[in-house]
């Protein structure tokens, strides 16, 4: 039976990027549908009635919601190629812990960096860098969080690299100066076609952020 895979997505979304990377790593052909988040499609509302958010992965008509759940699902269904989660239960638990940490910290802190200014922004920047340094420590000397190859935590985290330039411009700081090893890791990931094709250009993300700032009246 022909597999039908559809991804409802929004190009700048780091969450959408995770699923794009996972699908690309596995070599899965799918239909990409860009959503206008100010005018969500009937399909999106039907497939994710609880949150009405992207990304939504639709496999043979059945929706899977939440990006990390999609990555795990993709890894389980197309298990014969490019495994993303380790097979050892303890290593798997470690990978899930760090992906959860990325979810808890990176998006919110990064958002506070571009949405706020003054004292609030200074605090956000400080916490953001601390979080990145912790990730850097976890990476250690490994080429990827997954070890020798791209893994679950890499897929969970690398999308935010496409937002780094926007964070840096808005916050007036250099992430590379603070976390050189992390930037080296990011560039290594970007050499992979699955990642390079899934991430938007950093300048385009910055333009998108500027548009959001204007729209929400943030200077």
């Amino acid at each position, binding site marked *: 039976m022909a597999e039908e895979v559809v991804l409802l997505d929004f190009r700048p979304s780091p969450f959408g990027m995770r699923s794009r990377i996972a699908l690309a790593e596995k070599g899965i052909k799918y239909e990409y549908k860009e959503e206008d988040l100010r005018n969500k499609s009937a399909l999106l509302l039907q497939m994710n009635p609880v949150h009405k958010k992207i990304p939504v992965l639709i496999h043979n008509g059945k929706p899977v919601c939440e990006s990390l759940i999609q990555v795990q699902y993709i890894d389980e269904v197309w298990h014969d190629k490019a495994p993303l989660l380790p097979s050892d239960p303890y290593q*798997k638990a470690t990978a899930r812990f760090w992906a959860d940490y990325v979810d808890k910290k990176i998006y919110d802190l990064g958002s506070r960096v571009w949405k706020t200014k003054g004292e609030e922004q200074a605090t956000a920047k400080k916490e953001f860098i601390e979080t990145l340094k912790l990730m850097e420590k976890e990476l250690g000397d490994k080429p990827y969080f997954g070890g020798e190859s791209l893994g679950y935590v890499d897929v969970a985290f690398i999308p935010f690299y496409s937002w780094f330039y926007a964070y840096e411009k808005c916050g007036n700081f250099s992430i590379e100066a603070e976390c050189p090893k992390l930037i080296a890791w990011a560039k290594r990931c970007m050499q992979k076609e699955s990642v390079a094709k899934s991430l938007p250009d950093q300048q385009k993300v910055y333009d998108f952020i500027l548009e959001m700032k204007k729209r929400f009246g943030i200077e």
Partner: protein
Amino acid sequence: MAVVELFGTWFSPYAYRVIWALKLKGISYEYIEEDIRNKSPLLLQYNPIHKKVPVLVHDGKPICESTVILQYIDEIWPQNPLLPADPYDRAVALFWIKFADDKVYLMSKLYQADGEEQRAAVKEWLEMLEVMEEHALIGGKKFFGGDEINMVDIAFSFVAHWLGVLEDVVGLEIFEPHKFPRVSSWIQNFKSIPLIKENLPDADKMSAFSKHGREMMLASKSN
């Protein structure tokens, strides 16, 4: 023989998730009670990132975050599975577990709120209960797991037991059974399971403890 230790607190819904999972699988473990106002050096060593309970230590190796712990337990000890075997059904279960996890903060939000904030917190609780009623519990199942409880039931346990305590502490009725018949049935079914019934923190003890804490917190807020 492998040693299993669980660091928890007597009132924590997260710790209870792990207790139930271990008991359901028939796994012996040593329970270590933590005073969250005075955390042990061992806890801080095992969970340096979040410094929280629960932490499961298996053969000296720590696992943190209750949902990560539950999935680990389910994989190491496959008897009485807590998640469906089919990848799609598992993805749906994980969706609801995440939904529940993302809502547990409503416990402390309501606990800490007064005035306008309290009204906002109550509204969010009702919205969450509506989603459970209209989306999560459709299909007339006894439990989220079907005829037996699974990880999704365990994840929503804060609604079954801790919400009642919270209502008593803040003096509000948020959950009206007639408005949420499916959720109400589920709560009754869940709390009737002997394993659950026999392993719940005492509601009156929690209520007294929380009321006192809340009075102090609100007093310092208004100063």
